């Protein structure tokens, strides 16, 4: 970066701000840089695969026989049945493709992390990642001038990663408010749990989508597992959220309601935690 010609300066921003929070202190998610060893298929996995193959394979055979029988009855009837069968199986294949793409998206995060840690590949990987982000173009000149991998990582951290983290926080706060409000309204504790689980899964998908991932059902499950592992590695996750929860519950009315509804505040905190942990799990920089 050619900064020698730039005159040093200091400038005050207009809007007042709160004290800065250390984003990296509570969430240094210890995700491994090396890819985990390929696990062999478990017995349950083998059984599920076999069952899926039987159901799908036998369904194909049955439908094939049925289509052939329809052609025997009348050509137009055969073509119509074939069209319906093709459309049906096509939709199933599309959904399987979507799931696989979602799973591969998670793999791409791991590969990107490895590439960003490699001095020879860091710049190319960073530029490729920027291409997938809406506001990535603004950083390209700075990135092109940066040489050391640490400088590249610092630029990414200061630019898109910070922006993504802020957007994830906003999603987390929105979810926290919804969960809080709903928990106050829902009469049954059992429904509370269901509500939090549903909103949590949706939040994970939202934050993943923000990071350019589009996880399907299996992808979401894999992401949830990854998020759970990441959160488990961080003993202090909850500790970081005092300030975030304070911000969410800064309204006096909400604070009053929080006092009335035991557990709602905890659920709200969990949403903010979940957003941050998911953002860290989806980010190519740790």
């Amino acid at each position, binding site marked *: 970066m050619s900064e020698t010609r*730039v005159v040093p300066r*200091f400038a005050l921003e207009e809007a007042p701000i709160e*004290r800065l929070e250390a984003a990296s202190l509570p969430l240094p998610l210890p995700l491994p840089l090396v890819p985990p060893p390929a696990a062999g298929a478990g017995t349950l996995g083998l059984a599920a695969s076999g069952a899926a193959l039987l159901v799908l394979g036998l369904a194909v055979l049955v439908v094939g026989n049925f289509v052939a029988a329809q052609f025997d009855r009348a050509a137009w009837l055969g073509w119509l049945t074939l069209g319906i069968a093709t459309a049906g199986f096509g939709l199933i294949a599309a959904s399987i493709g979507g799931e696989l793409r979602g799973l591969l998206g998670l793999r791409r995060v791991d590969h990107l992390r490895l590439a960003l840690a490699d001095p020879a590949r860091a710049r190319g990987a960073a530029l490729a990642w920027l291409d997938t982000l809406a506001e990535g173009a603004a950083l390209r000149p700075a990135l092109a001038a940066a040489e050391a991998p*640490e400088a590249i990582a610092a*630029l990414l951290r200061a630019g898109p990663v910070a922006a993504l983290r802020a957007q994830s926080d906003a999603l987390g706060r929105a979810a926290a408010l919804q969960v809080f409000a709903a928990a106050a309204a829902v009469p049954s504790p059992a429904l509370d749990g269901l509500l939090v689980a549903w909103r949590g899964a949706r939040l994970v998908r939202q934050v993943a989508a923000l990071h350019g991932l589009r996880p399907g059902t299996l992808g979401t499950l894999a992401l949830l597992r990854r998020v759970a592992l990441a959160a488990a590695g961080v003993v202090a996750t909850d500790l970081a959220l*005092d300030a975030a929860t304070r911000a969410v519950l800064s309204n006096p009315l909400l604070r009053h309601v929080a006092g009335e509804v035991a557990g709602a505040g905890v659920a709200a905190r969990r949403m903010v935690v979940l957003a941050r942990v998911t953002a860290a799990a989806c980010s190519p920089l740790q």
Partner: protein
Amino acid sequence: MLIPRRTLRVGVTGLARAGKTVLLTSIAGNLLAAGAGLPTLPALAARLGGRSLRIRLAPAGADALPRFDHAAHLAALAADPPHWPARTDAVSLLAFDLDVGRATPGLPPRRLRLELLDYPGEWLLDLPMLAQDFAAWSRAALHRLEPYAEAAGFLGFVRGLPVAAPRDEVLAATGHHLYRAALRRLRDDRGLAMLQPGRFLMPAPGGAPPWLGFFPCAGSGPLAGLLRERFDRYCAEVRHSLAAPVFGGIDRLVVLADLLSALHAGAEPFADAAAALGAVAGALRWRRRLPFLPAWLPFVPGIARVAYVASKADHVAERQRGNLAALVSRLTEVPRADTAADTDTAAVAVAAVRCTEDVVWTLEGHPVSAVRGRVAGAARAGRSYPGEVPDRPPDAAFWAHPFLALPDFEPMRLPLGGRAGVPHIGVDTLLDFLVGDRL
């Protein structure tokens, strides 16, 4: 089973206003949080590789040294609005008991007492004096004072002394007071660091003995003889104190310097700080353990590891922190901590309490790496791009452009009032260098 506890004493010292108290506070907060299982010191956690680590404050017992009041300093940093810890003028000790788990299951934990001694930075500058005689020291000290108006009164007194001035107590006391006052003004008003003897600025506990009453003098008459005798006694006392049980026995040493402020202050103050750092590094090179002895060997006197630390590194963006470490490295001629893990000296850039976050700031069409923090008293964010940090002692061309003053940023919010650690940069690397081989 009674497991013996070995002691590792780390001296923490530094040039004036380098942030010694803040560093000790941050180390205390982060070590205690790490002992509670919080991930505040990633480099130490990596060193442990999954082994357990319990840390608690060591009881003071019947120690002679007062304890470092880390709780009060942490509370000051965590307060809203926060306060920087006040400058400390007393020697103090911070001690922890560490139980480090073993890789082999079933073995008892390794027990270590980690003592951090707040060693007065001023005293460190006495070390180079040990290699000089009175005449050489006087010449150098007088030469250093010449450019400064604050020392004009003392210089006038010394130059006006008759060549054959008698061994007069009043003359010696007058010169001593004038010299001492000049040193104080140069430290407080000019921010100079290379001021000797250190005990003139930071007296040892107890009353002032007569041999402390000397000053640099170029003459060779009876008064100069008296001053020489006192100088020699002073050096002998310094040598003795290095081996004394209270201040001696330092196994590792941290030398702090605020080079960013020195860069802002200009060529002269920077040269002064560089000279002080270089002199300390030169003196320490001779006071270290014999190099052929392995570092793990216990009961060998001497300083096994020295870390030279550039403080307030969060006031420049990440890509410039490398330059800051390289600058310290060049000034002290030691390798950087991140490039030479197994050496016994290292140069590190550290922010004991982080105040800023890195931002990319577009200035005059160029994106520059800058920092952003909340300005103390203003409740607004300030963006700072102070200029390029040189990776070697700056040449004349560097001083043609200003290096901005470090803004007065507030420390980041301390999670759980400091009980969950203190946001920092590089404190874990520093601790890993200092104690990693004993974990």
